[in-house]
Structure formats: C-alpha cells, structure tokens
C-alpha cells in the first residue's frame, strides 16, 4: 500500500473532492503558495474561483464561506486554530446556529481545516488546541484525524457532510507517515471514513486509554513500555469528537474497569473532562479506579524549549496515570 505523509493525504482528499464536485472550493491565506503544504498546484488546475487567497480577515472570509454554503457552495477553509478566535463570531453565531435558528432551512456544508502547532516554539499566540470549545457549541462537527489514513478518509467525509465540520490537524499527527490505500484498491473506489466511529488502536485488557489528537501517539508509546511490565492497555482514538462514539469507550471501560484520557489540550473543560464525565455517569458501576486525565497544564503555552515540553502530556505521564489506576 502507498505510504504517504499526513499533509499529502489531506492534499489528495482535497483534490479528489474538488474534482468530484465543482461546488467544492478552497479558501484561505496564501493557499496558492501552499504555505501549509496542502494545496500545491491546485490553483493551476482549478483557477481563481475555486482556489481563493483571501485578505487577512478571518471573520470576514469565514462568513463569506458560510454565506456561500447557504446557496450551494462547499467551501474548504484553511487556517490555524489560533486564528479561530478572530473569526469566532461567524463560526459560532452563524455556522453553528443558523440551521437550527431557521428551523432547518439552512444547509451549511463548510469544512474548516486548522493546523495545531505542538511543541515547536510557536508560543502562546499560535498554540491553541481549542477543539473543546467547538465541541461545546451545538451545531459543529469536530474531527481530529491522527494519521494519514484517517486524515484522507475523514476529510473526504467532512467535505461531503452537509454540516459545518472542523478538522483539527495536530502537530504530532502532521509529522506522521502511514499507509493510505490507492483508490483502485478500495471497494467503492475511494476512501471514506465515517464520523462517529472510534478506532481501537490497540486492544488490551487492563486499562482503557482514550487518546485525543496527538494524545494517541503518547498512548502508543506508553503502551509499549507498559507491555513490558505486563500491563495491557486498550487504546481508543475517537477520531471524531462530535459526533462522539461513546459506546466504544463505554464498552471498553466495562471490560477493563479503568480509564485514562490523554488530551494535549488544556485540562479544564476539555474533551478529556467530557469523556471522564460521561464514563463517571454511564459506566460508573464498571469502574475499579479513579478516572485519570492526562492533559496540558493549565498555563499559557510558553515559548522556551526548556518549558514548552513540560506543558504537554508525555508517555511517562500516561504510564504513571495508568499505573495509578492499577493501584
């Protein structure tokens, strides 16, 4: 099977969807020059109307994307998680609310792709991992692909979805490479990963570890070490946070009796908090140990290479948390 990078998978998904449906178009800052690596060559193929370099006006062009989606277009908007703050009003007040507010009249097939920097000295202004905020807002789908396969398959599903979808591209995942099947080798001739189906990254028996975004990689590293100590963890990657595949998590916890959630976002009101609270309510009687969150420290992200790594979860912190649940 072909091996490709995460960004190549995103680029392939983008091109395929643009070829398939001419309502699909790409919009963002400097996408013609493909500064984030997902849009090289697209302008030459699809032209001015479908590959749009915008002025530096996130609230404005997010809104334009949304408005165009109301009348038949299917924009893919490229940005960085930290720039969401600037365009927040359009995302929350319009994209998330319009359909419901208007009694179902609005259809909003907008896909945002946002890069999340991680442990690379981007400092507080470029290090937001704000998927929890969009999870908490009814009306948005929240997607965190952690490998090239999912990146391609979830991205294609997002573009076809008739709801606003946000794809969070985690710095850890972005640097990954992996197998992505060629279309001709796939049953339907294309790769589509459904929303709301978690992936069991690794089966195990002693403790369930849910990894969010880059948290999956830390969990996998931890698993190898724990295995040598005779501890078997089951790693679950929810892949989509909205819709969330609660059932796979609950079933796993019913089996293992233990839960650790690894989330590289700030701890408070996080996806990890949410998953903890679901399990504490719905799988309580299966639990044999405290539910542990392994998340980012509740401080702004510092620049210094001496400090930044201390903010985030590490395999060691995952290992300690798992051991803590083992008593």
């Amino acid at each position, binding site marked *: 099977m072909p091996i490709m990078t995460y960004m190549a998978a995103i680029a392939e998904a983008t091109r395929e969807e643009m070829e398939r449906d001419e309502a699909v178009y790409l919009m963002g800052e400097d996408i013609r020059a493909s500064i984030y690596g997902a849009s090289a060559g697209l302008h030459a193929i699809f032209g001015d109307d479908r590959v749009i370099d915008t002025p530096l*006006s996130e609230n*404005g062009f997010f809104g*334009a994307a949304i*408005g165009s989606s109301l*009348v038949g277009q299917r924009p893919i908007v490229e940005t960085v998680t930290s720039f969401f703050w600037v365009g927040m009003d359009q995302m929350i*007040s319009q994209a998330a609310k319009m359909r419901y507010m*208007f009694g179902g009249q609005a*259809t909003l097939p907008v896909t945002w792709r946002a890069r999340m920097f991680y442990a690379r000295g981007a400092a507080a202004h470029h290090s937001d991992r704000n998927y929890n905020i969009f999870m908490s807002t009814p009306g948005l789908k929240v997607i965190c692909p952690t490998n090239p396969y999912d990146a391609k398959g979830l991205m294609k599903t997002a573009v076809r979805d008739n709801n606003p979808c946000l794809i969070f591209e985690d710095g850890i995942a972005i640097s990954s490479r992996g197998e992505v099947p060629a279309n001709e080798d796939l049953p339907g001739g294309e790769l589509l990963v459904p929303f709301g189906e978690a992936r069991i990254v690794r089966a195990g028996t002693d403790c369930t570890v849910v990894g969010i975004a880059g948290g999956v990689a830390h969990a996998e590293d931890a698993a190898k070490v724990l295995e040598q100590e005779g501890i078997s963890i089951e790693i679950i990657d929810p892949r989509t946070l909205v819709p969330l595949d609660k059932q796979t998590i609950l079933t796993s916890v019913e089996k293992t009796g233990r839960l650790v959630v690894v989330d590289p976002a700030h701890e408070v009101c996080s996806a990890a908090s949410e998953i903890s609270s679901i399990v504490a309510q719905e799988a309580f009687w299966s639990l044999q140990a405290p539910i542990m969150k392994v998340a980012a420290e509740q401080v702004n992200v510092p620049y210094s290479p001496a400090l930044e790594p201390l903010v985030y979860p590490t395999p060691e912190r995952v290992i300690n948390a798992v051991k803590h649940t083992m008593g």
Partner: protein
Amino acid sequence: MPPEKAALMQMLERMWRIRIFEEAVIEIHSSGELQGPAHPYIGEEAVAVGACAALRDTDYIAGNHRSHGHPIAKGGDLNGAMAELLGKSGGYCKGKGGSMHLADFSIGILGESGIVASSVPIATGAALAAKQQRKDFVSMVFFGDGASNQGACHESMNMASLWNLPVIFLCENNQYAITTSYKNSVSVDHVSDRAPAYNMPGVLVDGQDAIAVYEVTLQAVERARAGEGPTLIEALTYRFEDHSLGLEKVRDSPYRSDEEVDEWRKRDPIQLHEKALTSTAVATSEECDAVQARARADVAAALVFARNSPYPEPQELFEDMWA
C-alpha cells in the same frame, strides 16, 4: 425610467403591510401575548421596500435584529412571520427563531441576525457564490449605522470590492444605535463616505422616499449584475418607535428629543409615497386606501393564523440541528 404603476402600488402595499404588522406586534406585545424581544421598523419602511423593489425573487437578502421589515419587503408571507413571533410551528422557522431570526430561503431571505453586523459577511458570501456559479443573482444586506462600526463590515466591503462581488451594502442609518447617536459612533459625516476606502461607489439617499431608494438601489443592482461590483448605499431614515419593545424605560433617557421625533414623524414614508402617487395622478387616494385596507386584512388574517397555529411538539427540540 420611473417605476410602473404596478411596482409603485406594490411598494405602497408592502409599506402598509410592514406598518400594520408592526402595529399589531406592538399591540400583542403590550398585552403580553408576545413575550420575546421585537424591534419595530415603523418609520423606516421606505428603505427595505424601496430597496427590495429593485430585486428579483432569486436575489438574496440578509438582515438584522430590526427584522420584520426586510422579509415583508422582500415579499414574505405575513402568516409565517406572525406565527414565528408567537413561537408557533407555522412560523418561518417553526418557532425556533423568533422575531430576530426570520428567514425564508424559498424567496431568498437568508435570515436576520440578532448579532449586529454578523450577517454582513454572510451576504457577501452569497454574492461570492453568484460569481463562482456564474449566475446573475445579487445579494443585499441591511445593517444599521451602529453596525457599520463593526469590523465585519470593513472586512466584507474590502473583500467584496477586491473580488467584484454582486453585493449591495444597504446601511439603514436611523441615526441611533439604541441610545447612541451615529454622530458619536461613526467618525465620519456619513457611513457612505466610507465607500471610497473600499474603492466602491457610496450613495446617500433619503430613506423616507421609497422611490428614491428604489432608484439608487436599482442602479447598484444593475452594476452588480453586470459584474461591476458592490455598492454602499446609506439611506438616512428614522425609527419612530422605541429601539425595542420592552425597552420603554430608555425613553426617559435624553438621547433624542421629542421635537426631533416629531420632526421626523412629519416625514412619514407611507404618507410621502401616497402623496407622490396621488399628486402625480398615478393613483387615486381611494386606490391607496384600498391597498391599506387589504394590508390590514392580511395582517388580521396573519394574527388569526398565528394564534391557531400549534406550538411545536416537545420532540422538535431535537430536530433541525443537523442536515
């Protein structure tokens, strides 16, 4: 070319529909039947009606919290509007939107926004779609003098100009944002004076004169349809009533004088339009009265419709979230 009689009479009818609709809303609000917020459009009818008269059904509009005039001007049905205000399932939005969120996509009403200026980028996006789809529809957004100070307006006008989009920015300058005079919130004499900053035409028009509004809008629409880009129109107008129903206490605030209100009430857009029709012998005053009577009957029927419309069922709470 001045509009034909049919068009002029339709303007009159739509102004009356708005006026009488709003009067009914004020009544059911004060009786307690209507509980949500509502922002009357009385006094400003010529703006939406004149502007929408220049549009086709396939053109789009978006608006703001002062939200009843725009859809009615675009040809929206009164029954659905009134039912929506009462939170009934026969409303435009099945009762989910209420006064500030009227929308009827079937005739190009992309919705009113309770967040001020937030629909400006939305309308700009609809215009972008026109360009991308190579269709000749245009898009128009109504926003206030207060709204013009939001960054969303700046960003949208800049994009629209750069990309030559078929969008009309229609600023309803009723001179106040709640209690704040536009002289204390807009740093230039007129909102339309900002058009050169986006390299687009800026037009100041008498917002009490439906025909004048129609004419400048038609020009802007023709430019837009011809691919010549956006226009900023500022219609100078006045709201005759309180900012919103339920905000009567603000009346005590000295933000505008009774004399000023009285002065503006003399320029009632409906009276002015009727006078224009009768003085040029386009219509008799009997014809005008008949139009008014029809509008009155329609509003009365809408009230009956709305009252008879059932409330949404509890399970509808969970419907319409996802496509």
